């Protein structure tokens, strides 16, 4: 702002124009023009978000109160879909399964991501290259990597069994993707490998925002590296830790791709996630009303997870 002042002094009119707009009360012609132009500029974005995100959200709530089939007429049936959900064992099981999966992968992703961030955060020779390499699995995407994993997890022909059986850890004929526990193990390892680079990038950005001077004075005071990390970095990083946990927990709760591709929910329905359950109800069973009720539950659960984590980690952060 200080830089702008000479210009204002030279052009007294300009200051008036700008103060007219600033308090949001367009008192001048320029101010009114600003309002018109501003609204026109943001209108396309509002249109997109309104039409393809906000409207479907409200529309979904409405559909959840109907017995809407994918084709044909429908009628309002109140909360019947929600009552049906209470007895929908596949859906309830999918919630439990997704929570369990989220519980399994969250801590490893965070711990690995944090350790990697500590490793690459300083600008030493090579650290940029290492960051790029570690982040690569995230860029390539879980869909592509799930296809690769399907091939490599095949019994007798996959690389995973080849390596592990040479090490004497598993039998060469282990069929990873047809046993619930084994499939969960394989998918969890894949996801931690895929995702920890992303957690690393976020946490590293936060760490780089902490001024060096704090560490220097801590060192002068005789604090060990570990003490500085625990007493300084972690508290100062609170907001970034919250963010990385929220993104990873919500992402895990919305899991679909890796399970659809690698197990298709099987064996039986033992690895059906919430989103897969919605997808199946809508597009295979063609019960759009019920699927929308599931979606509403999903939005609420995701909102709650975000809220609780945010409150928990922000509690004494501000």
């Amino acid at each position, binding site marked *: 702002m200080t*830089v702008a002042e000479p210009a204002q002094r030279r*052009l007294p009119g*300009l200051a008036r124009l*700008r103060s007219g*707009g600033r308090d949001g009360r367009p008192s001048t012609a320029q101010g009114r023009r*600003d*309002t018109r*132009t*501003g*609204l026109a500029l943001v209108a*396309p974005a509002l249109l997109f978000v*309104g*039409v393809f*995100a906000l409207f*479907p959200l409200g*529309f*979904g709530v409405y559909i959840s109160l109907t017995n*809407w089939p994918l084709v044909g007429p429908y009628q309002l049936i109140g909360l019947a879909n929600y009552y049906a959900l209470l007895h929908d064992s596949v859906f309830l099981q999918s919630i439990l399964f997704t929570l369990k999966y989220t519980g399994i992968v969250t801590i490893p992703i965070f711990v690995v991501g944090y350790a*990697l961030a500590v490793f*690459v955060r*300083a600008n*030493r020779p090579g650290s*940029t290259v*290492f960051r790029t*390499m*570690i982040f*690569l*699995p995230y860029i390539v*995407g*879980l*869909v*592509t990597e799930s*296809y*690769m994993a399907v091939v490599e997890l*095949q019994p*007798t022909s996959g*690389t995973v069994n080849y390596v592990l059986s040479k090490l004497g850890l598993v039998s*060469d004929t282990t069929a990873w993707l047809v046993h619930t526990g084994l499939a969960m193990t394989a998918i969890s390892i894949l996801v931690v*490998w895929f995702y920890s680079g992303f957690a690393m990038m976020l946490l590293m950005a936060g760490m*780089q*925002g902490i*001024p060096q*001077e704090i*560490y220097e004075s801590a060192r002068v005071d005789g604090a060990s590296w570990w003490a500085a990390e625990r007493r300084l*970095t972690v508290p*100062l990083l609170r*907001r970034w830790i919250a963010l990385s946990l929220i993104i990873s927990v919500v992402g895990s709760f*919305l899991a*679909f791709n890796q399970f*659809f591709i690698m197990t298709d929910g099987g064996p039986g329905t033992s690895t059906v996630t919430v989103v897969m359950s919605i*997808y199946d109800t*809508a597009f295979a069973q063609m019960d*759009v009303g019920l*699927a*929308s009720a599931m*979606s*509403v539950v*999903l*939005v609420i659960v*995701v909102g709650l997870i975000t809220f609780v984590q945010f409150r928990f980690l922000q509690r004494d952060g501000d």
Partner: protein
Amino acid sequence: MAAVRSRRDQAGTPGASRGQDAGRSQRASRSGGRGASARAPGGRTASSRGLGWFIAAGVAISAVFVLPLVWEIFRSLEPESAVASAPSGQSFSHLTFANYQTLLSGQDDIIRNVVNSLVVAVLAAVLTSLVAVLAGYGFALFRFRGSGLAFGLVLLAFMIPFQAVLTPLFLELHFLHLLNSLLGLALFNTTFNLPIGVYVMRNSFLQVPRELVDAARVDGASVPTTLLSVLRPLVLPGIATTALYAFLFSWTEFLGALSFLTNDDLFTLPVALSNVETGTYGAVNYGLLLAGAVIAMIPCVIVYVALQRYYVRGLVSGALKG
């Protein structure tokens, strides 16, 4: 947070956003002189022996993340029979492009799927950038009633998981005749990339010196002229970030494409690969699946490695929003 902020002010960082900080250190590390910035947050100056260990450990860790992907490139060059049977020492003595040839020729070639993916990703990248530039310009440089509310609404879309509006969106696209349409899928991808795009672009425009905008206005430049000739060069990095995000998101997007496209001819590459996986076109062929996955991987790697500084910049800028 208050503690962090005041500490930062004491440290004399002149009003820079953290996004800039990270961007700067990113640059610093590329020109990375050994002495200049070889200090860890722990404050220890790396001795040359320490540096040797750092690089050795870095190579080992990088290998964990990159080798599996490189390995799959080799595997995709094996003949199908080698992919489908027990690995052996001779696996790599017969490298061949046979899987790629099969995949890219014949009746059910995946070239059209690659083209579909490209069309959707490029369209989404262009649309997202265009809409985000306009909105970012409006939010950053025009004060108007409802501006805060409008910005909040755009960011709200960030909170809505697209997985949760899948079914109503399916019906809506059906009514709009945008189901089974690459344009419809691109519009969907655009919408869910807009929040981050608008956020990045608003920050870009906020960093433009205010007097430049005012000078253009005093000179009587119209809004489009100001945007195209005065501001464009200054916000190009932001546009690159936005376009890159939308492109990578769309190129790897699966659930939306799976739900909104039912015509095989319109499938994007990731969806087409699920047909290869389940052997819709005959027997399951893992050689083909690997070759297809590698084809899906290559553009991501090239685009990312070429433009990664924009990606990291956006990551930090987007994350700041909290």
